[in-house]
């Protein structure tokens, strides 16, 4: 099918059921990079904005929220639009003019979607140079519902991302698991790895000035596969604050507050299922 034709029709606004325009494409691309650990992502568009979901191994799910207020223009003609797309290609297109935040030059983005079976059309412009991309959309798969509800949350910690960044960057990758211990008593929050060199523990006291909120009802120790959590480092790196929550099943929710270049706030969250065999006495 001739790409040129489909591009032309796609830019016809009447056809589009979704249209989003933003002056700085990096506001979208940076957030999406934070969840880019698989090739494909599922996009959910609603009047509230965009939610992009990436999953792996049926154990981990990352969601990026780009609310409609971020966009200069956001028009949606349906209540819920869902499609799957190749995230790698989407990111390459979004960053086609380069990734650097150099010299104030911004790439502006216009995204259009004409409905089921139609491609996602991007138009990017920087300093008079225009690029248009048409990316095929795919049949959306069902995404996991981790059923993580606030009512089941046992422990919740909100802290500044800075100190956690270091701990995650230096995660001992020879360890299979990352163990989260959250407790109303010392050591309060402890991240542990058990690798070839030995065990490593990072303790974060609840009265640290890095802690913004510490609500732990009971001592919980849960282990998660390092390989699954490692991608969350990207989101952590962009974020300024992070909330760590575990529920009664030991599921972990990490929510990252990310400020984009224009000072607007977006959220990325990661859900992770615990590694079984948690009941090893080894510590």
């Amino acid at each position: 099918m001739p790409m040129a034709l489909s591009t032309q029709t796609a830019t016809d606004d009447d056809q589009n059921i979704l249209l989003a325009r933003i002056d700085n494409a990096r506001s979208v691309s940076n957030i999406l990079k934070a969840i880019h650990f698989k090739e494909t992502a599922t996009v959910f568009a609603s009047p509230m904005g965009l939610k992009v979901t990436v999953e792996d191994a049926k154990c981990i799910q990352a969601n990026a929220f780009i609310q409609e207020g971020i966009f200069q223009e956001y028009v949606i003609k349906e209540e819920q639009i869902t499609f799957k797309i190749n995230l790698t290609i989407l990111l390459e297109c979004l960053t086609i003019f380069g990734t650097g935040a150099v010299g104030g030059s911004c790439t502006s983005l216009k995204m259009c979607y004409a409905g089921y079976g139609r491609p996602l059309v991007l138009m990017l412009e920087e300093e008079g140079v225009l690029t248009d991309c048409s990316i095929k959309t795919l049949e959306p798969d069902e995404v996991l519902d981790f059923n993580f509800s606030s009512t089941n949350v046992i422990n919740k910690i909100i802290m500044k991302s800075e100190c956690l960044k270091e701990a995650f960057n230096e995660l001992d990758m020879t360890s299979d698991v990352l163990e989260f211990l959250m407790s109303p008593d010392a050591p309060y929050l402890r991240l542990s790895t058990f690798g070839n060199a030995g065990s490593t523990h990072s303790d974060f006291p609840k009265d640290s000035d890095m802690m913004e909120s510490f609500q732990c009802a009971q001592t919980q120790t849960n282990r998660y596969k390092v390989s699954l959590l490692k991608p969350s480092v990207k989101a952590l790196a962009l974020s300024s604050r992070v909330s760590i929550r575990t529920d009664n099943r030991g599921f972990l929710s990490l929510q990252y507050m990310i400020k984009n270049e224009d000072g607007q706030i977006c959220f990325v969250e990661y859900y992770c299922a615990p590694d079984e065999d948690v009941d090893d006495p080894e510590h």
Partner: protein
Amino acid sequence: MKCVVPGANIKVFGRAVHSLSKIGEELYIEPLDHGLALRTVNSSRSAYACFLFAPSFFQHYDDGVGDVSSQDSDDTLRCKIAMKSILTVFRSLSTMEKTVERCKIKLNMKDSRLVFQLYCRHGIVKTHNLAFIECETLQAVFSKDMCPNSLTACSKLLCDAVMNFQNNQEEVTLIVNPEKIVLKNYVEDEPDPTKVMHTNLSLQPEEFDYCQIGVDTEVTFCLKELRAILGFSEVTTLPVTLKFETAGRPIVFSIDSDSTFEGNFVLATLADQLTQSQAPTQSRSTTQKSRSSMKQSRTPHSRSTMMNHRPGNGGDNRSNTRNYGQSNAAERTDGLEEFMNDENDFDEMMIQHETTINHRDQTNIHNNKQTIDSKHKHSEDLSVRSKGDNSVVNSKGDHSNIDYSMEIMRSASPTAGCSKTNEESPVIPILGSRVKITDRSLDETDITMEDGNHGNDVDNQDNNEEDDEYIPGTPPAKRFRSLFFGSQDLTQTQHKASTSVVLAADSDDDE
């Protein structure tokens, strides 16, 4: 054992660990009463490094001796840790500098873990529980005071000099005479010398903080290791002191911060054929030196003399004096006395230890016996001395032109009052790659030397009086060496292979 590194010193400590990691794969840790010793040796035993951090370096230092809870048999911790393990603790030095307020190192005997606790900003505590292996002390016997050549330079000078060499340059040669100091890249005989780039850098003695050239010489050593040394010295901005004698004798790089810490890197140097006979001079350094060297760990300022430890060679004392004309009489005497006292220990040690070079048992035992029997007899041939002997491996006697002489003594728990030498394994200072067979013209000379003198080199004026008990007719050390010195095998084989390629020009055509 428990010690606390204050935040200000973590950078230095971490850098020391990093530079050690570029030398060897395992870090030997030993808390001594005069400080914490971190040591390593490379796989081919041609480079040894030791950092000694005095108690003043720490906020709190407790070497654990006399610690009630520890076992009697190992009341001091002597352990080694994989470099990778400790690098996980000191991974990101720049971050550590900013965030770590202090680092506590302690021994958790119960779980057999060496614990590094980093107390960081914001109340964060990072604990690393590292598994260690108990081992004997790693200690090299080397001499600093007896070296006729000594250069001290700020590390910037050396860094700038070293920058001129390609990154893949393996070895450099330092050529010294009182007028100038030259650094050049070392090129093995290539089939076509015109295809190789030669870099030659000259420095004036005035550029050095201190320059004393007693013996005009050329020493060749590994550049990669020098870079590791400079990586550390750069950070501390302390000057680096080079002490060396001549080709074949080790070169010692020292970084000394008054009495807070001291770093010593001992690199083996290439011995070329002409100076090969000098190798025997190693034997000059006797045990007494080694004894003093064993004392090294006890007295931070003791510059243990002599690389080669030969049991029973009290006579070296004489030779040392003669050759260097330096008066370390006091030290030597002390060493000698100590040596005498320790002689029995050596006997025992030698009996206890396995010879790593089995096939040489006969040769070496023979040698050793003699050396033990007569203290003043220079029985050594520079070939491997086995058994408890701080063997120096000189490839003298081989056709190989490369002799790296360095002796590393492994000692286990200290016997009362003596240096810590329970176990000694021979040290083979052979630096892998260089079995040179290419210089044909000299081969014959070699052979002559070997048969005739066991290394009492005719050419060598300086050295001498070795009464080597080298057993003539023993197959060239190099061949056997290859059996024992792991990495050597490969390099030797490789070298041989490459040599054979050179020899048999057609082999390539077969492909």
